[in-house]
């Protein structure tokens, strides 16, 4: 996966550009979208507790990687949607879109066998070919998304003046 800053910046870019066309997509919803971009990486709980520990705790097979899939993102967007006090449907849609932007960006990263991860689960276990665009530890990833976000930020400021 790309590092989270790039994911947040990509979501910011996508939602801000979309907001130029969609009147309802105000800055508060752009902010919700950037939170959505964090959702798939909640599987990084795995950095602190291993799957084996969770398997022992639950007594069943367990793989936290399920969060970093379509299914996991869909469910977490649903949880996020009821955490806001109102406008749950809109919150759900924006969180889901943010999560999808994350998964799509990750679908482009490098795999040594040339096919992406199983992020389409549970719809399918299919691993599609990846263009092998990047590895996350390459600073060029952040520099590219950062430059893009800076351009969009300034264009957005000019538009709202």
């Amino acid at each position: 996966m790309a590092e989270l800053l790039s994911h947040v910046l990509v979501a910011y870019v996508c939602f801000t550009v979309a907001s130029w066309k969609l009147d309802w997509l105000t800055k508060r919803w752009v902010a919700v979208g950037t939170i959505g971009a964090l959702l798939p990486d909640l599987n990084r709980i795995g950095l602190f507790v291993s799957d084996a520990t969770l398997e022992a705790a639950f007594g069943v097979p367990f793989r936290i990687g399920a969060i970093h899939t379509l299914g996991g993102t869909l469910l977490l967007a649903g949880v996020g949607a009821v955490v806001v006090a109102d406008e749950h449907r809109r919150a759900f849609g924006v969180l889901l879109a943010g999560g999808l932007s994350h998964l799509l960006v990750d679908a482009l990263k490098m795999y040594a066998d040339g096919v992406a991860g199983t992020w389409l689960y549970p719809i399918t276990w299919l691993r599609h070919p990846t263009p092998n665009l990047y590895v996350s530890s390459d600073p060029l990833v952040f520099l590219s998304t950062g430059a893009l976000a800076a351009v969009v930020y300034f264009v957005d400021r000019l538009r709202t003046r």
Partner: protein
Amino acid sequence: MRLAVRATVAVVLLAGVVGLCVHYGATYEENWPHPTGEQLDAEYDRHVDDQVLLFGEVKDVNPDETVEVHVTDSADEVVAELEVDVGPGPEETNADSPGTDSIRDEATPLDPSAVEPGGTVQVYGELEEDRSMTADEVVVVNSGPDAATYKHGVSLLGILLAVGYFFRHWRPDGRRLGFEPRTAGKTERIGADAELEQRPNGSRNGNG
């Protein structure tokens, strides 16, 4: 939506997340086309001569174009210490150019200087019986410990940025146990929501 309904939905969906992780864990091995750490540990010989994709930590980089890679299981225990040949393909006479007996001109899967102990790699290649592997492709995920630190540090910045941006526009409402928009006039320069909220008679449903 009433608080009790919201809480119920949240609990049901979180249970769904746990259920999804259980199903994913129970079916992963039969659907992932490569051996997992557990499978490599339990039945290494079954995968000998297979083309496999493995993830592991680099323990040593040798001058003879081999890299020692440690593969772990789900408990982060090392289950295989593999010597991975990352040099160019086998020396072959180029059949298309008789007489040149040149070595096949293929890209080396990995420049050993691109990675150091503590780094992380993906290796795709043929697993061999003497706990070694010949790599066809190697992806350097983290070139070393510094690369992993960079990734985690930048990711933390991303979390702070998103959460900070969110709280600029939303605030927790203790009474309703949820987030509500901050006063629109302070955060929204333009937009339908702001226009509605700034109109004298622009009452909105649900924002009481």
